């Protein structure tokens, strides 16, 4: 079974989650758990979700981003989306994520 891996990196007050593979409802469940676990422990000031290695994403990915956004905001942190490939960026635009200031 394909797994959706995520690699974490920390620097200063940032936690970067490098997402890899395809994001759909199936893979988002596991990603959510992994990211929330790391965030709960580290409480980073900025959570960076790096999409450079994401080859496919449907609207489950938007749900994933929004859920993490609320999560970090609940303790005063912020979220930033980094390096979305064109198709992922299109999905984010459709979701109106530009207005959130996370892009």
């Amino acid at each position, binding site marked *: 079974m394909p797994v959706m891996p995520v690699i974490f990196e920390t620097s200063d007050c940032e936690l970067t989650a490098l997402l890899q593979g*395809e994001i*759909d409802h199936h*893979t988002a469940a596991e990603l959510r758990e992994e990211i929330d676990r790391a965030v709960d422990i580290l409480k980073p000031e900025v959570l960076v979700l790096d999409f450079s290695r994401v080859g*496919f994403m*449907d609207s489950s990915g938007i*749900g*994933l981003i929004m*859920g993490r956004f609320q999560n970090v905001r609940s303790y005063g942190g912020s979220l930033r989306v980094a390096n979305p490939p064109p*198709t992922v960026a299109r999905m984010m635009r*459709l979701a109106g994520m530009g207005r959130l200031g996370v892009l």
Partner: protein
Amino acid sequence: MRGKVIPQNEMKLVIPSRSANESFARAAVAAFMAQLDPTVEEMTDIKTAVSEAVTNCIVHAYRDTIGKIWIEAGIYDDGRIVVQIKDKGCGIPDVAQARQPLFTTGGSERAGLGFAVMESFTDRMTVRSAVGKGTTVTLEKRVAQRYRHDG
């Protein structure tokens, strides 16, 4: 009805509503669609729309159970692909409301954007649904054919 137009090729797929099948379903439709010689972007559009429809069967139609999902696709001489995704799940009480962007009954991890994505990534989307009977979503897209196949 487009009844008299016969597809150049067609396929049918029946899968249980397990979330691991989301990637299989969109990849299968994309592989079938390759016969139309679509661009990568056109392929991604259909993959994304199919992923949304299949996910809705898994997450909403058969929320607490596993049911069957029927996927039928046809490609036509004029470069159209038509994909139908059908479930016999709970049905949608108010389709117009469900199609509104951001509307969801799925809780905080759902964006409520599935129908908006299907609509914007295809040329046409229709939804037929009856409470207690199930839902059928039909997606249609014409790909710009760069050259025509002879066979």
